[in-house]
């Protein structure tokens, strides 16, 4: 298992307590700084106050739905990369969300190590995009 320390924050959003806590624990063991939120609304608040680099977002949530939360996060900061999780097996929403710029769309159940690599890749993508934007602005 990859235990190196990572210096960036990941926000994990899922209304399912057991799932969220277990996943957060697993990511923390692997060296991530993990923030959690149990709803879309709470996620938006975290993004405003303590912005993460990468968000892992469950799609099916009561209240503010995953897709709406995704849009709200991108409005606050379009550079934050979002990985969508879903328990749904249909590709209906997946196509739309990928076209809108979700970093990736993963269908549960997936392996925790796969998620870890996805988060790292999302972080890389974010850093590269930030650099480009800086250089474009110069």
């Amino acid at each position: 298992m990859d235990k190196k320390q990572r210096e960036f924050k990941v926000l994990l959003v899922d209304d399912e307590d057991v799932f969220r806590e277990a996943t957060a624990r697993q990511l923390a063991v692997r060296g991530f700084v993990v923030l959690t939120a149990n709803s879309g609304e709470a996620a938006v608040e975290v993004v405003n106050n303590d912005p993460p680099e990468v968000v892992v977002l469950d799609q099916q949530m009561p209240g503010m739905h995953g897709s709406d939360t995704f849009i709200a996060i991108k409005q606050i900061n379009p550079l934050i990369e979002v990985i969508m999780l879903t328990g749904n097996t249909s590709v209906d929403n997946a196509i739309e969300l990928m076209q809108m710029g979700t970093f990736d769309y993963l269908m549960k159940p997936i392996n925790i190590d796969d998620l870890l690599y996805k988060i790292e890749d999302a972080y890389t993508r974010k850093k590269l995009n930030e650099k480009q934007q800086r250089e474009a602005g110069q």
Partner: protein
Amino acid sequence: MSTILGNLKQIYKALRGRSVADQPGNSSEMNALFRFRYALFKELLAANSELLTVLSDMDEKLKGETVFGLSYITNQVNKSLRNAFQMVKSLNVMSSGKHRDLYAALEKINERIKSIIEERRAECASRAVMPYDQVLLKDADWAGGKNANLGEIKNRLNIPVPEGFAITTKGFHDFFEYNDLKEAIIKQKNLIYVNEFDLLNNLSAETLELVRSKPLPPDLEQEILAASTELWGDDPSVLVAMRSSAVGEDGDISYAGQYLTLLGVTRPEICEAYKTIISSLFSARSISYRSSKGVYDEDLAMAVACLKMVDSRASGVLYTRHPYDITNEHILINAVWGLGPYAVDGVVTPDAYAVTKDTGLTLQEKTVATKLVQLRLNAEGGVEERPVPPDLQNAPCLSDDQIRVLAGYGTALEQHYKCPQDVEWAMDPDGQLLILQSRPLKIQSPTNFSLLKAPPLKGYELIVDGGEIASQGVGKGVIVHVDAVEDLADFPEGGVLVARHSSPEYVIVMRQASAIIVGAGSVSGHMAALAREFDLPTLICANLSMDRIPPGLEVTVDAYTGRIYAGEVPELLTAIKKEEAHMKGTPIYDQLERIAKHVIPLNLVNPEAPEFTPAGCATLHDLARYCHEYSYKEMFQISDLASKFHGWSLKLDAALPMDIHLIDMGNGLKEDALTKWNSVKVDEIVSAPFIALLQGMLNKEVHGLEPRPVNFSGLMSVIREQTLAPGHVGDRFGDRSYAIIADKYLNFSSRVGYHYSVIDAYCGDTINKNYITFTFKGGAADDVRKNRRVRAIADILDREGFRVQVKGDKVDARLQKYPKSYIESKMDILGRLLIFTRQLDMLMTTEQSVVWVADNFAAGNYKLTAPPVEA
């Protein structure tokens, strides 16, 4: 909302539109970027393999020989859509959205499939409990495969089966809705992915307990008890066997052993036992199993079979034909005293009987064994081993009349199900013969049955043995070699297509051909899928020697045992008659057939064709083919990124006439190799394709020849070109060679002087993923010599089995879906070729030198000093 979406899409476009690689970066950026792209490529390859596996499974079901229900269809459809989506997604992220129209194509296919599924979902079982008198095969979707089969045998064929009834999926749904249990199950399912097994175990135990603690809806309980009273009155001695009759897959084969069976259930215990059985769906083991098989829980349901337990006097197995000797059509029966497991497990040597299929059902063979022990029911419904009474130990279990009755049942079953059957039977205490189960008999292929397969037929010349079976069947015809696509134009009716390698382009002649034999390819590849679609016997014969099957030779291809015989073999041609299978014509089969039209057919066979576009993708198979093709191209271009990061690469320390810089994307080097003075030794490389390439490059025969003696007129041509037409040769490439590596991957670009070559290769254990692409372009000499050189290279590669294309001074070669060792041997050849071709254009003074160079390379003679004189 729509403006927000529009804005987002624009931001996304702006960000993704520019290539992130335009900027030179630092080492960690570089590593991340390469790893990122490679990870996507690997995802795409994995999804492609998985999708093709689903396609071949659906093909198998379309033969109509095995029972399946709606859940099977939704599961397979979800799996294939998911993998197609994964491929489209990976390709688009790799290419910064170059193929975005694929999403629209996928959406269209998705819509079409969904509408077909929705029609069927509206239908469902009207009753929660069905006695076997009322169950037929068409009820498989809600009664489960096992129940439906027993009902069909009893009601359509009037063959006795054990007494009993089915509790359908309606019972399952009623129970879950009555107690509001769906939520609990979803929670549990999501946890598998976190890999917290303790947590999963605890939650599984909780769910099991929860399900068992809930009451059955009163209506359901009453229906179950009524069905049991109807069959067995108040008889307290009746014991029941209760087992799952799963609907998620094909009958009970795939779920074998996963779910609970309860034996010796007394009448008052039936309802409790029912709950225990359905709760077994939620054991940690079952959940993990479903997850590993990619079965999803949305449509999860279970039917249960309640059967009166039979304390069999004798039991055994019946095959309606020989399982691997396809010329033996006798009905084969074996029998032991007591219960069946001892016949199957080999604890006791059973009696063996063979019966001919003529009208009289003549007993052909009768071998009576000594049977010392037997398995019997005890009073509690369990089983125990007992000695066989001495007078029965050497007696036959079945009388000749009983053997004939049983053989009659076998014949009827085979006729009804329209394919050979594998049957379990029992004799009850009153001497009545019952059928416990009947399923299609698998005609064994030699790959998994090598020791037991039938010997080759006598009296015929066996040319090839041990071919892998890509599509079953027997075909006869005259050998036609196909070396290039153009050869397909005059392919004769009934010919046997022979090629070095599989290709989906052979689809053009699949209607005319009587069989296909290829030297390499994969049984789950595109061509194999097409061959199954066309029901065309197809063999993949590794190490196929073309000389053994020359053009014009008549052969019989036995794609059941993987053999090729010279001439016509009438026994084989008449042995297995293709017949319509029993699932055909059922509503569920029709539905699968309709859906399959949007999944399985491959229309995009030729990447050069104008319809090879996202809009041309009419099926999921097309999408997969398109993504697969373009993923190569994306990976091929990865070398363009390498020079932008040259400051961060490692130098290869090897005695080679060129500098090679290395970029490791993951596990391409030994762990401790990374940081020694920024240089790496050859023995620190673990990338399989790169090791093989270097082996060729370092080969003593080709190596150490530098510099090649300069031929004067050749040198003059080079100098003339460089001085007179600087613009023409102006696109001088950088003088570096890059190897971007991973454990199974290599992208090697060599840009030396005025020519470049790129090799892109994947080399692992999965044949379907392996490939080599090679491009060679340019040179410092005049156009004529450059063209001669690429033609010489093309000739060499063609002889090595590559598919080759020459345009001007560029040659493209490709090879795919070969075993690892073969790919490695070709990488070795390419390594030699890279060294061999340096300055080769100076030697290309005459037209004859093209063949002369290729001949010498093939002969292993790499010292070229005297080109043939111009005629």
